[in-house]
C-alpha cells in the first residue's frame, strides 16, 4: 500500500534549504580517525600513522614508529667495534654494504687510520657503496611505482636487483646481510672474474633504467599521481633536517660525497642531480639520475682499480692471518687481544656522516678507551626524514599518502634501530 499523497509533509523551500545546510554542516563537522599500519603494504615495513580525516582529506597525521626497535645502540655498548659490523647490515637492510662502509669509516676516524687505508680497499668500498645505492633506489622506485599502480616497473627493477644480489653473494658470501667491511679493511678481496661480472651488470642495468624511465617519466597516470603532491619546500626541508635524495629533490645542492669527500670520491667524476619543486615527482627524478651517476662512478672505479693489499697492516686493528697465528708469537698475541678485548681505541669522540642511499647516515662514537664504545649513536636518515610527515601529509587525500611515503623512501629497520 502506498502512502496517500495528502499525508506527505511538504515543507517550505526556505525550511528545506535550512535542513540541507544543517545536514551539510553535520558532514563537515565530523572527523574520522583512521589507523594506517603498522602492517600496511605501502608503509614498507612497520610504520603506523594515525590519520584524522575530514572526508577524504587528511587534517592531521601522527606517525608512530618503534615497532622494529631492537636496541642496536645498547647492544653496541656491550660488544667490540668489530662485533657490531653485522648489526649495521640490519639498519638499512636494503643497502647493507653502504652501512658497513659508513660504520667502518666512523671507527677508523676514531682510531685515526682513515687516511691510511690501502687504495684498493678504498676503491672497492666505493664500488660497494654505489652498488648499494643502485639496489636501494631500484627498490624505492619500484615500490613507489607499485604503490601508485604501475606494477610492471616493480618487476623490471626487481630483475636488476636480483643481479646485484648475485654480485653481493659472490663478493661477500651473503646476499642480504653482507658484513663485508672490517675495521681497517675488508673481509676478502674481489673474487676472480667479479670485475667482468660487474661490468656486464652495468651494461644491462642502464638499459633497464631506460625502460623504467619510458614506463614512468612521461606516464600520464604516474605524473598526475606524483606532480605537485607532497611538496617539500627548500627551507622546510632544511628545518626538518631532511637529507639525501629527499633534500636534493627540494632543490638543495648538497651531497656529502662532494661536500666532504671520503674514500676516493674526490677522484670520481659525477654530477649531483637537484630538483626544483620538491614534490614526489622531483624526488623520483633525482633518484633516477642518481642511479645513472652511480653507474658512472662504478665504471670509473673498475677502470682505476689498483692492485695491492686490501687491509691496513696493523695487528692491533685487524685479525692477523691464521697461518701466522699458528706459527708466530707476536701474531698469536695480537689474535688473543683482538678476540678477548677488541681494538683498543683512544678516548675521544667523533661523528662521521656518510651519504647513504636514504640520506646522511651518521655514527657518533664516544670512546673512553678500550675495545667497546662507551656510547654509539646512529643518526638514521629514515628516522629524521619521517619526522616531516605531520607537516607534509595534512591537506592531501588518503590516496596521496602512498605516493608520498613511496617517494620519501624510508626503511624502518634504520628508523627504529
Amino acid at each position, binding site marked *: 500500500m502506498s502512502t496517500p499523497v495528502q499525508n506527505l509533509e511538504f515543507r517550505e523551500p526556505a525550511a528545506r534549504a535550512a535542513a540541507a545546510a544543517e545536514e551539510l554542516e553535520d558532514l563537515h563537522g565530523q572527523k574520522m580517525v583512521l589507523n594506517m599500519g603498522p602492517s600496511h603494504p605501502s608503509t614498507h615495513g612497520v610504520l603506523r600513522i594515525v590519520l584524522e580525516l575530514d572526508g577524504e582529506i587528511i587534517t592531521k597525521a601522527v606517525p608512530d614508529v*618503534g615497532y622494529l626497535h631492537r636496541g642496536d645502540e645498547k647492544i653496541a655498548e656491550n660488544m667490540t667495534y668489530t662485533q657490531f659490523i653485522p648489526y649495521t647490515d640490519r639498519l638499512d637492510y636494503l643497502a647493507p654494504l653502504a652501512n658497513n662502509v659508513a660504520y667502518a669509516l666512523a671507527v677508523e676516524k676514531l682510531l685515526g687510520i682513515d687516511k691510511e687505508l690501502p687504495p684498493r680497499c678504498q676503491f672497492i668500498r666505493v664500488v660497494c657503496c654505489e652498488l648499494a645505492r643502485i639496489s636501494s633506489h631500484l627498490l624505492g622506485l619500484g615500490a613507489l611505482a607499485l604503490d601508485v599502480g604501475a606494477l610492471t616497473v616493480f618487476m623490471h627493477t626487481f630483475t636488476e636487483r636480483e643481479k646485484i644480489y648475485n654480485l653481493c653473494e659472490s663478493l661477500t658470501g651473503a646476499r642480504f646481510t653482507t658484513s663485508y667491511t672490517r675495521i681497517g679493511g675488508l673481509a676478502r678481496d674481489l673474487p676472480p672474474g667479479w670485475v667482468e661480472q660487474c661490468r656486464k651488470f652495468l651494461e644491462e642495468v642502464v638499459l633497464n633504467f631506460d625502460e623504467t624511465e619510458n614506463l614512468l617519466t612521461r606516464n600520464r597516470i604516474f605524473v598526475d599521481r606524483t606532480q605537485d603532491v607532497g611538496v617539500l619546500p627548500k627551507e622546510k626541508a632544511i628545518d626538518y633536517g631532511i637529507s639525501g635524495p629527499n633534500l636534493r629533490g627540494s632543490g638543495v645542492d648538497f651531497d656529502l660525497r662532494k661536500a666532504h669527500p671520503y674514500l676516493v670520491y674526490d677522484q670520481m667524476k659525477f654530477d649531483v642531480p637537484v630538483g626544483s619543486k620538491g614534490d614526489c615527482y622531483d624526488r623520483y627524478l633525482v633518484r633516477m639520475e642518481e642511479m645513472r651517476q652511480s653507474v658512472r662512478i662504478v665504471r670509473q672505479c673498475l677502470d682505476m682499480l689498483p692492485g695491492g693489499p686490501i687491509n691496513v697492516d696493523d695487528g692491533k686493528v685487524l685479525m692477523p692471518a691464521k697461518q701466522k697465528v699458528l706459527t708466530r708469537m707476536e701474531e698469536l698475541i695480537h689474535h688473543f687481544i683482538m678476540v678477548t678485548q677488541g681494538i683498543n681505541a683512544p678516548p675521544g669522540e667523533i661523528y662521521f656522516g656518510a651519504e647513504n642511499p636514504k640520506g646522511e647516515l651518521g655514527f657518533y662514537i664516544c670512546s673512553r678507551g678500550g675495545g*667497546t664504545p662507551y656510547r654509539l649513536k646512529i643518526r638514521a636518515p629514515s628516522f629524521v626524514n619521517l619526522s616531516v610527515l605531520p607537516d607534509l601529509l595534512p591537506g592531501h587525500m588518503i590516496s596521496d599518502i602512498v605516493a608520498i611515503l613511496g617517494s620519501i623512501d624510508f626503511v624502518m629497520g634504520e628508523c627504529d634501530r
Partner: protein
Amino acid sequence: MGALDLANKLIAQFGAALSAPAEFRGEITLVLNDAERIAEVCQCAKTSLGFDYLVDITSIDGYGEDPRWTIMYHLYGYGHRAYLRLKTHVSEEKSELPTVTTVWRTADWHEREIYDMMGIRFRGHPDLRRILMWEGYPYFPLRKDFPLAGKQSAMPDIAFSDRAPLEGGPFVTTPGGKDTIAREPRVRVPETESLATNARLERRQDVKDIHERPEHHSKP
C-alpha cells in the same frame, strides 16, 4: 670560514659560558656550562653564524658521575659547510633542560628519543612522548644501569615481556681492571644491581598476578 673561527665567534658572543674549543680528529667541540642557556646559544648559532642544519642530538649517561647526563648537539651550516659540536651537562636530580625545537623543528623527534631512552626532559617541547618504546613503558633502556638483557615488564598486553636469553654474554672484557674477575663484563656493577632489582621485581606479588592471569598465557 672554518669551524674554529665560527666557534671563536660564538665564544665572543657568550664569553665565559662556553669553554675553549677542543679539537679531536678535526672536529671542534664547545662545552656550555649552563644548560639553561642552550636554546639561546643555538638560536644565535643558527641566525648569526649560519648553522641552519641540526644534524643530530645525542645524550650520554655518565653513570656514577656528577653531573650524570651529557647532551650533544651536532650543528652544520650549508653555507659555510662546517660542523660544530655543542655539549652541555645536566645533573640527575634536574634531568631537564630547555628545548631547541623552537630553533630547528628537526629537534622534535631527537628530543623525544632522548626522553624515551634516557628519561631527560625537554622543557617547552610541544609533544614530549615516548617514541621508540611503547606508551606506558616503565624504564629508560639506554641508561647504563638498565641491563642488556632487559627487565621483565609488568605490562599484561605486551607479548614479549621476559628478559632476553643472553647465555652468559656479552663476552667482551674491559681493559684496565685490577684482575680478570674485575674485567669480566658479567660482574660490572650496574648489571649486577639491575639483576638484583629484577629478582626483587619477580618476587612481587602484583607482578606475579599479572603474569599468572589465564588471559595472559592464552595470548597467541
